[in-house]
């Protein structure tokens, strides 16, 4: 954990009705260096992007994304999940340098 991987922001409701489909928003600070951009020396800055994002509920994949340089800096994703039970959500990002970031959140049913 280091390099370009920054702080993550996650937004989801703390509670949801059983069977409700909720929106989950996840963003991480990362420059998403495309590999096509010259740096201050005029050389192409090497590519370093977040290439994979996963959201797991109790260890089971809910949503995943393979990302390419066309994703904006600080990649933002909003997706949905049907809430059948309360439990723990894990959010994982991986970048080209191999750096990983993980965040965890709980959701309860009401």
């Amino acid at each position, binding site marked *: 954990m280091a390099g370009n991987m920054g702080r993550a922001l996650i937004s989801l409701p703390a509670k949801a009705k059983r069977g409700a489909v909720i929106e989950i928003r996840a963003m991480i600070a990362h420059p998403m260096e*495309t590999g096509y951009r010259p740096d201050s020396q005029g050389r192409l800055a090497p590519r370093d992007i977040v290439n994979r994002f996963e959201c797991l509920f109790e260890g089971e994949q*809910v949503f995943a994304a393979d990302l390419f340089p066309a994703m904006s800096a600080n990649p*933002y*994703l909003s997706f949905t999940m049907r809430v059948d039970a309360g439990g723990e959500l894990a959010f994982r990002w991986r970048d080209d340098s191999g750096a990983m970031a993980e965040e965890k959140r709980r959701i309860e049913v009401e």
Partner: protein
Amino acid sequence: MIRCPSHTPTRRQVIAAGAGFAGLMLAPSAQATPQEMEKAILAFTGGVKPKEGRVTVDIPVLLESGASVPTKVSVQSAMQGDDFVTSLAVFNEKNPQPNVAVFHFSARSGQAAVQTRIRLGDSQKIVAIAKMRDGSYYMGAIEVIVTLPACAEDA
């Protein structure tokens, strides 16, 4: 008039040089082309031509900046049984690479809808392709105009 090929080229030479120069101009920024996008789409579908419909790509049509373009892709689907979107891929015509992202859904997804922010290097067509569980593919597209491309900015 003295004919000097290097200074007063013929029409044919001008056209040839123009083509070469255009190539040079493109080389450093290495733009994808509509053909490359087509190839990338067929690579995703395994050669199947996607059917039109069911997929919506929602982007403001006129964009001041291409650096961070709010983009919503969604598929009309019950997300149950065979009417289930397993993945949804987004492609572009004119960025350096035709791929933007591939989203993977699960039985817990409830909806096949994603919002994100993308980079656009030029005014172009954005295409989204949905892969259904029954092996069929659907597509939707939108044409957008970008006044300041992503590559012009640092971020």
